[in-house]
């Protein structure tokens, strides 16, 4: 290995090691090359390995501290995103799915429905308070009586948005309890929403 290459590799070592052992290391390298004891490839590899070992030994504490800080920061960000709990529609918009009653099959099981104009709180949403459209009522009335099951959503209100009195838009926050991640069957969801709409019509 030429001396310039070795000097360049020496820069991989911490300054303190370079100042203390640099000359000796270069001399030993030249001595080994002069005797033909070690191949050039091996010396290059060894120089890099030595730099890594020395750095890892001396900087392990700093690296560990940096790694812990990054891990904590990621955990905080992850927890914040997972919680995602805000009552304001703007704050929760990225966690919401804008739905119309005619597409309730797209609602994940456990979603919480908030009607246009209704208030939103952190209490579990169990009652539908909006005014359904004509199509909703028709959809509900077409359901067989055996399909009409009470809605038992226990999700949390995330907010609401409206698209006008003639075409209400229901906003559902995606809430997936860990123990119930399966989607509700399509007909059951339709029936649940239809029943809620009917209750709202009756002013319950």
């Amino acid at each position, binding site marked *: 290995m030429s001396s310039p290459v070795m000097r360049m590799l020496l820069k991989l070592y911490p300054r303190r*090691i370079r100042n*203390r*052992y640099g*000359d*000796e*290391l270069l*001399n*030993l*390298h030249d*001595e*080994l090359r002069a005797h033909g*004891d*070690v191949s050039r490839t*091996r*010396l290059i*590899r*060894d*120089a*890099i*390995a*030595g*730099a*890594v*070992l*020395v750095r*890892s*030994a001396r900087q392990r504490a700093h690296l560990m501290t940096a790694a812990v800080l990054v891990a904590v920061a990621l955990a905080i960000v992850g927890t914040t995103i997972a919680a995602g709990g805000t009552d304001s529609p703007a704050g929760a918009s990225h966690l919401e799915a804008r739905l119309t009653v005619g597409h309730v099959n797209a609602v994940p099981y456990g979603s919480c429905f908030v009607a246009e104009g209704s208030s939103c709180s952190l209490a579990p949403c169990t009652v539908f308070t909006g005014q359904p459209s004509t199509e909703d009522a028709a959809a509900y009335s077409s359901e067989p009586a055996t399909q009409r099951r009470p809605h038992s959503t226990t999700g949390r209100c995330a907010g609401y948005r409206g698209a006008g009195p003639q075409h209400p838009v229901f906003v559902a926050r995606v809430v997936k309890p860990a123990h119930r991640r399966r989607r509700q069957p399509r007909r059951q969801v339709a029936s649940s929403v239809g029943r809620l709409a009917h209750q709202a019509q009756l002013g319950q």
Partner: protein
Amino acid sequence: MSSRDVSSGVLVAADLSKRVVLVLTSLADGPKHGYALIKDIEQFAGVTLGPGTLYGALARLEDAGLVKALPAQKRRHPYQITAAGTAALTEQLRRDEQITRVGLARIGVQPV
């Protein structure tokens, strides 16, 4: 996982401690400079250390007070094991000896 896998901190630490033991063992019978250390270790252990790894081990040993550098001779510093280094080497070798003895017994091989 192979012994060449340097991504594991455990293996790196184990590998480094092996180098440290080799250097201390070589210095146990008297001060040596870098080239003499490499040749001696090559002779009794069959391991050829390079300059980088040798001085990496020496730096750690000197930081820990287990070896000390003597005044330079012809631009080369001989290194000498300290009393603390001798004690550390003794403890390590006894531990290794016990492991060796148990391991050989369990595989049915008599110690030489």
